């Protein structure tokens, strides 16, 4: 437990130092979202229609960006070796790293999303559901992503592989997440989608850290 906190503190500290980790995701999110109108055109009706899709795809890409750097730096400078060698079980440390990754990439997106939603004038409930959906969805993205990151660690052309592996797995999250918001916009209830998201999250929470650790051990020896 203590070790988890230590790891989280460490990763957050690192993220603060090389700001990139936190901000990359965030700014990428903002910028992607604000670029689309420039590409597509300013009709509010049209924009409002595609807003959930854009916001979710942007969030998804933003999370994916950070993934390749989830384990790579620690691998490069030998920290990962030291983790394997450390007496505390690797699983805990990995869990810690995943949590830290969500705090640095997922959480900011959740907090920022409503502001961007306003630009596409989504109304209050739509924004509310958007936040809830992201709260359920982003941890899911981090968890699934971690597996991919571990599997592609130190592999030539890991970057591509990573997106190839991870994105198909992201599709359900995307569909339910965006779906939830669209439901609200078109005046229906989003509970169905949200509960599905929650279910996915539960499964991933149980499954992903374990898979990630296994993958890492393979990557390291």
């Amino acid at each position: 437990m203590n070790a988890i906190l230590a790891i989280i503190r460490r990763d957050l500290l690192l993220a603060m130092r090389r700001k990139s980790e936190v901000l990359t995701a965030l700014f990428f999110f903002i910028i992607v979202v604000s670029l689309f109108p420039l590409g597509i055109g300013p009709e509010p009706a049209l924009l409002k229609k595609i807003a959930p899709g854009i916001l979710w795809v942007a969030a998804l890409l933003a999370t994916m960006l950070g993934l390749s750097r989830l384990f790579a730096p620690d691998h490069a400078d030998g920290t990962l070796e030291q983790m394997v060698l450390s007496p505390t079980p690797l699983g805990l440390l990995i869990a810690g790293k995943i949590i830290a990754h969500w705090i640095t990439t997922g959480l900011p997106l959740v907090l920022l999303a409503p502001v961007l939603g306003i630009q596409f004038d989504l109304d209050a409930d739509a924004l509310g559901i958007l936040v809830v959906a992201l709260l359920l969805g982003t941890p899911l993205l981090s968890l699934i992503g971690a597996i991919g990151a571990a599997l592609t660690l130190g592999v030539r052309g890991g970057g591509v592989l990573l997106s190839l592996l991870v994105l198909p797995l992201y599709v359900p999250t995307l569909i339910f997440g965006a779906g939830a918001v669209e439901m609200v916009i078109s005046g229906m209830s989003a509970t169905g989608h949200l509960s599905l998201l929650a279910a996915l999250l539960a499964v991933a929470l149980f499954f992903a850290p374990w898979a990630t650790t296994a993958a890492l051990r393979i990557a390291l020896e």
Partner: protein
Amino acid sequence: MSNNKIINWFKFASPQSFYPLAGKMIPWFWTLAAIFTIAGLWISFFVAPTDATQGEGYRIIFIHVPAAWMSMFLYCVMAAWAGIGLALNTRLSGMMAQAIAPTGAIMAFLSLWTGAFWGKPMWGAWWVWDARLTSALILFFLYIGFIALQAAIDDARRADKAGAILALVGVVNVPIIYFSVKWWNTLHQGASVAINKAPAMATTMLWGMLIMALAFWMYAIALVLMRVRAIILEREAHTDWVKDLPEVKGN
């Protein structure tokens, strides 16, 4: 002759001699700012009549437009200082550019904010992808970029030069961006919200706007001078002239 002109230009360009000069100027600009602000506010709330189409809501214009103007104007000034810095590498120029950026960013933010608060009642939406709005947003991004870049570089000299290049590239782009966004917007005309232009403004309104603009101007100058003084101290901390400053000596 011209030669020693350059000399004494450089004399003022040196932080050491500019520091006290700025110190003397600041109070003046503050008083001017105060006067204009009071006058401007008085006109904008008590003299300017209610607008025919927009009711009282239009009074936002009295800060919105000056803020918008300043945001654009300051970026040019910043780029100019940066350019001088690259060309003559005078230490002061970089500091000036660095001092201007935050104020400019705040002005850009104000134009966005007040604009949004104007847009809600006028267009029923906080934000529409109108040319002016969008380019204002991009200008804001440019400011943030400049500030972030300088903040991220440890070595002050390098920060100045890098910032200068960025500012110059930016200032070349700003018109292109504005023009392109306008083009983009007109391309989609009709479909997009018809932004009903304010009717030819009453002269009193115009005066109010201009005086408020002056107020913003004075405010910006005063503030930049204050900030540049701080920056000078930070950068020159280890020089003797700073150590001998009365405010450092007298404790």
